């Protein structure tokens, strides 16, 4: 069951105690962080339920809380995944989606099934770390609504098969 009340209460506690200014002891600040994290969990369920109801599809939604530091297990490990982008603004927006991925070629489709131009860029690696890649594409999202984009990782084998099919059809 989704619930926004725990996050609502956690926010109320934080705002009442002026928690964002760093004017609390470390153990109190740690407790604020605990309350926020505990409040966000049931909110994720609430958002998942809302998206299922609006899209008429039940899915195993995943919220990547560490996308700002390029960590997202779903996009990094899956060969096929969906991205739902919700726009809370009262006007249409274009949003550049950036997701950490493994090295490769990707095929991105918009909600109408049309191919969307995308790039995979390599982030400069800091010493001792493996190369990191990010998938970029521009998403268009309606006012107070959402768009669902699908991403497929194109394996080399699939690519060769597609090229060979194309050649055969040209020969015919």
């Amino acid at each position: 069951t989704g619930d926004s009340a725990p996050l609502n209460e956690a926010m109320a506690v934080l705002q009442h105690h002026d928690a964002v200014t760093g004017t609390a002891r470390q153990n109190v600040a740690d407790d604020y962080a605990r309350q926020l994290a505990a409040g966000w969990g049931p909110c994720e369920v609430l958002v998942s339920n809302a998206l299922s109801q609006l899209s008429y599809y039940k899915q195993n939604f995943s919220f990547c809380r560490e996308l700002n530091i390029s960590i997202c297990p779903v996009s990094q490990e899956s060969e096929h995944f969906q991205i739902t982008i919700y726009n809370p603004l009262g006007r249409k927006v274009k949003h550049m989606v950036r997701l950490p991925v493994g090295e490769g070629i990707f095929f991105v489709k918009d909600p109408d099934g049309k191919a969307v131009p995308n790039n995979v860029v390599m982030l400069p690696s800091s010493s001792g770390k493996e190369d990191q890649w990010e998938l970029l594409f521009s998403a268009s999202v309606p006012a107070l609504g959402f768009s669902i984009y699908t991403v497929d990782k194109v394996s080399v084998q699939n690519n060769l098969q597609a090229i060979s099919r194309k050649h055969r059809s040209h020969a015919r």
Partner: protein
Amino acid sequence: SRVLTIENEYIRATFDSSTGLLMKIENMEQKLSLPVSQGFFWYNASTGDKKSPQASGAYIFRPSRLKPLPVSRWAKIHLVKTDLVQEVYQNFSAWCSQVIRLYPGQRHLELEWTVGPIPVEEYWGKEVISRFDTPMKTNGEFYTDSNGREILKRRRDHRPTWKLSQTEPVAGNYYPVSTRIYITDGHMQLTVVTDRSQGGSSLKDGSLELMVHRRLMVDDERGVAEPLMESEAGSTVRGRHLVLLSSVSDAAARHRLLAEEVVLAPQVVLAQAGSSLYYSW
């Protein structure tokens, strides 16, 4: 080449390839050009002095000197140019880096900074700022918002309702920045939209600065009884500054819409393949 540029149909940003620092922003749509030098600096936090025993702390910002020290005078850079993004990675030090990027169709320059963990081995508290220096003649005035609503004019060493005797030339000119800060010479305007509330100021004409991170060794004795000192290695902070250069007449419409997009940003949710039809019952 001595210079390096990233550009889209509206904006061009030029970098000095020998220092790796931003040196110019151009608005090609409005034919505006502004030399801008941007870099990271840090104020050494006061632990109290002859004038006052007040130390810089969570509640109090009180640098020991007027001039901040540069994190580095140059940055190691890495350029990425593709159809969908152009970005310059700047590495200032082991604890301070930034990516300056432009996407197609975007009318602002995006600066994504990463600062921390702030080193404090020498027991100096550090308050890190990002500073933009331009030749704009701003007459000691700059503008900050108040809770994302009204924009208020701020004048250096001045208060509109009483005669100020300025005792803290740096901290006494710092103001809260909820979503944006800007400077203008009456012709063009340089606006920085923030992704979180920060402190900001313009301590000399044409200059604009925002505090991005701080780590202090001494408590300011305002009741918490702990210095603003993260335990263990310390924390790393990542944020974005969105920079707009435009004519004064056009600026308000631009920064209002941009700030809305930052505050009410799109939410991204992922799902792995495989779904079943959902019935509300």
